[in-house]
């Protein structure tokens, strides 16, 4: 119950006029970012990060996280009205959302999407409220091997859960690790992979990579697809909202399943995108009205939206408690925390109590404010999408360039952003996933430090990762997740047979040495 008292104090922190204003601004900016092609949660927050340096950390993180909630909401608008997923996790929403809009049920689809998003996010915030302090308390006992094991789990679940080819996921991840190693090695003081270029001394900042890969890369992709927005008119009538709300309780099981899938995928972290697909697939499999899916069925909007938002929100749990972000956007928020001198991790819950609980309280408030805002302002956002791309595209490029420059006040970063943009375009087209690259770039130094310290403890023996129950469990879970696709295939193949499990246990045996 101590947590509830802490949460109430958090509300007192978050509920000042100033913070409510930042919340409102954040949500509006977030929806705008979510609606515009080329700007998403991750790079939008990255670009706006420098603007918050003059604010107090609590206000700043409230605004930035509200931008994130806004972006999560905004992605659904373009999916439903224009059949263009504003964010990757909204792809599954287009399956039933756009057909509904074509049938003149856009208002119903959007109400269902926003409400489900809200429910998913709310569920995840409740999970964070009660689980985060426990995880943080637990993580206080973590040593370097445990930290490395959790990071290993992060990367294994990316490979196992990814919808992209696993080898490409590994390649993308290793590029991230290699880029993270560039620059001054803080342990030995040696220069690594700078090849005599002074610009590389600082290494690559992941914010630049995020802005380039997701921003410029997305713009190039959009140009290629020849964006002609042929949208359906978007307007939400209060009567339709009430009618839709009356219908939604029927799908409580789908919602609950979506919440659980989302929280699991957000924390482990598989990410919001696979969560939304998985939830959609499960909803269809278990539905009594299977044939309706894909032709404009409300349940087909409820399932992915709930899961995506539960995942997007719960991705903040490992970021706050362990300092390990579950998604690129969570990584950018983590970068922000570091800049304000707040070290995410278990100690944050002890040392900066009012900050943590203020943030958690703002998650509740931000999602309520967000739901009200998106329900009332949809026509505006739809109008923004009707601005021709020949105006929007150069403006977004300018915004990205400014964002890249302000990270370190360096022109070199702007040039690097361009390089990352081309890489992002090619990788997206060849199905190399970008999220593991960014996360490896963020976590590279941390993972390396944890690995080195573990090796120091064990004098170079890998066995330290199985030296006690805790670290061994995490590592084994990681290996299981890594081979998950292989295992589920084997299980599928043996279905009906008597010996499915015993057989494939051996398949997951040797863990690849990282």
């Amino acid at each position, binding site marked *: 119950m101590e947590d509830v008292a802490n949460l109430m104090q958090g509300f007192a922190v978050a509920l000042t006029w100033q913070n409510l204003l930042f919340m409102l601004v954040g949500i509006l900016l977030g929806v705008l970012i979510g609606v515009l092609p080329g700007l998403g949660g991750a790079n939008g927050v990255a670009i706006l990060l*420098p*603007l918050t*340096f*003059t604010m107090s950390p609590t206000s700043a993180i409230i605004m930035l996280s509200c931008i994130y909630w806004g972006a999560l909401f905004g992605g659904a608008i373009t999916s439903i009205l224009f059949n263009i997923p504003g964010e990757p996790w909204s792809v599954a929403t287009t399956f039933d959302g756009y057909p509904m809009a074509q049938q003149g049920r856009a208002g119903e689809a959007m109400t269902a999407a926003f409400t489900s998003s809200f429910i998913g996010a709310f569920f995840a915030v409740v999970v964070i409220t009660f689980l985060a302090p426990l995880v943080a308390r637990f993580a206080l006992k973590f040593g370097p091997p445990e930290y490395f094991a959790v990071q290993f789990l992060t990367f294994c679940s990316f490979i196992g859960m990814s919808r992209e080819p696993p*080898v*490409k996921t*590994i*390649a993308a991840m*290793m*590029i991230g*690790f*290699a880029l993270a*190693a560039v620059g001054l*090695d803080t*342990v*030995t003081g*040696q220069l*690594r*992979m700078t090849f005599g270029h002074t610009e590389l001394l600082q290494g690559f900042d992941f914010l630049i990579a995020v802005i380039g890969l997701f921003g*410029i890369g997305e*713009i*190039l992709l959009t*140009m*290629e*697809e*020849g964006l002609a927005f042929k949208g359906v008119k978007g307007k939400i009538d209060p009567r339709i909202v009430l009618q839709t709300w009356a219908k939604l309780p029927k799908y409580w099981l789908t919602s609950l399943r979506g919440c659980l899938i989302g929280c699991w995928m957000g924390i482990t972290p598989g990410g919001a995108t696979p969560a939304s697909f998985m939830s959609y697939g499960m909803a269809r499999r278990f539905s009594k009205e299977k044939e309706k899916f894909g032709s404009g069925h409300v349940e087909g909007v409820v399932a992915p939206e709930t899961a995506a938002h539960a995942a997007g929100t719960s991705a903040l749990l490992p970021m706050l408690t362990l300092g390990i972000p579950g998604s690129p956007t969570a990584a950018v928020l983590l970068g922000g925390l570091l800049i304000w001198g707040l070290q995410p991790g278990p100690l944050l819950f002890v040392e900066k109590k009012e900050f943590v609980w203020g943030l958690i309280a703002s998650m509740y408030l931000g999602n309520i404010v967000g739901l009200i805002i998106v329900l009332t302002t949809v026509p505006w956002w739809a109008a923004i999408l009707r601005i*021709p791309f*020949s*105006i929007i*595209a*150069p*403006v977004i*490029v*300018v915004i990205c*360039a*400014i964002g890249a*420059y*302000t990270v370190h*006040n360096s*022109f070199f970063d*702007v*040039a690097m952003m*361009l390089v990352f*943009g*081309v890489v992002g*375009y*090619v*990788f997206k*087209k*060849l199905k*190399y996933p970008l999220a593991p690259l960014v996360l490896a770039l963020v976590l590279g130094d941390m993972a*390396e430090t944890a*690995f*080195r310290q573990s*090796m*120091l403890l064990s004098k*170079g023996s890998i066995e330290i990762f199985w030296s006690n129950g805790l670290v061994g469990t995490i590592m084994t879970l990681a290996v299981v997740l890594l081979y998950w696709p292989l295992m589920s295939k084997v299980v599928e193949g043996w279905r009906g047979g008597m010996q499915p499990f015993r057989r494939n246990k051996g398949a997951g045996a040797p863990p*690849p*040495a*990282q």
Partner: protein
Amino acid sequence: MESQAEGRAAAGGLATRWVELVVALVIVGGGALVIKDSMRIGTDWGPDGPEGGYFPFLTGWSLALSGLWLTGHTLWNWRRMAGQVFASWSALRPVLAMLLPTIAFVVLIKLIGIYVASAIFIGAFMMWQGKYKLLPALAVAIAIPAAVFLLFELWFLVPLPKGPVERLFGY
């Protein structure tokens, strides 16, 4: 037959298999570079623990091996991928129409500062790609940098790169 398939792909656009192959080879090369550099600083066990190249060495090998795998995978499926197009030539044209001006824009930032470069970039792109008249293009081209100037230089006090024009106004 091989050359026929090639001809078809070439007529339609950039063949996927070539892009896959080049990217995979670049990954192998990148991995080799990482391995080479980590060997330079030592990948072994120093007097006080793992040397600086210890972790990058493993990274480099993983990178190079995944690149080799992808190279092999592409070559193995070379014939099956014959018809696949990375992007048709007609689709690549708008991509270049975006990319080349963006490169020019970045170079301009270096030369004359970000505000004037943005104005030129937005205005020129609108007139060239959007076929706008001079007046609306000029309006957007001036409004956006002006808004950025207010927001960054004056309100949030974040300095952006400036050039001779800004100096005329005393900034």
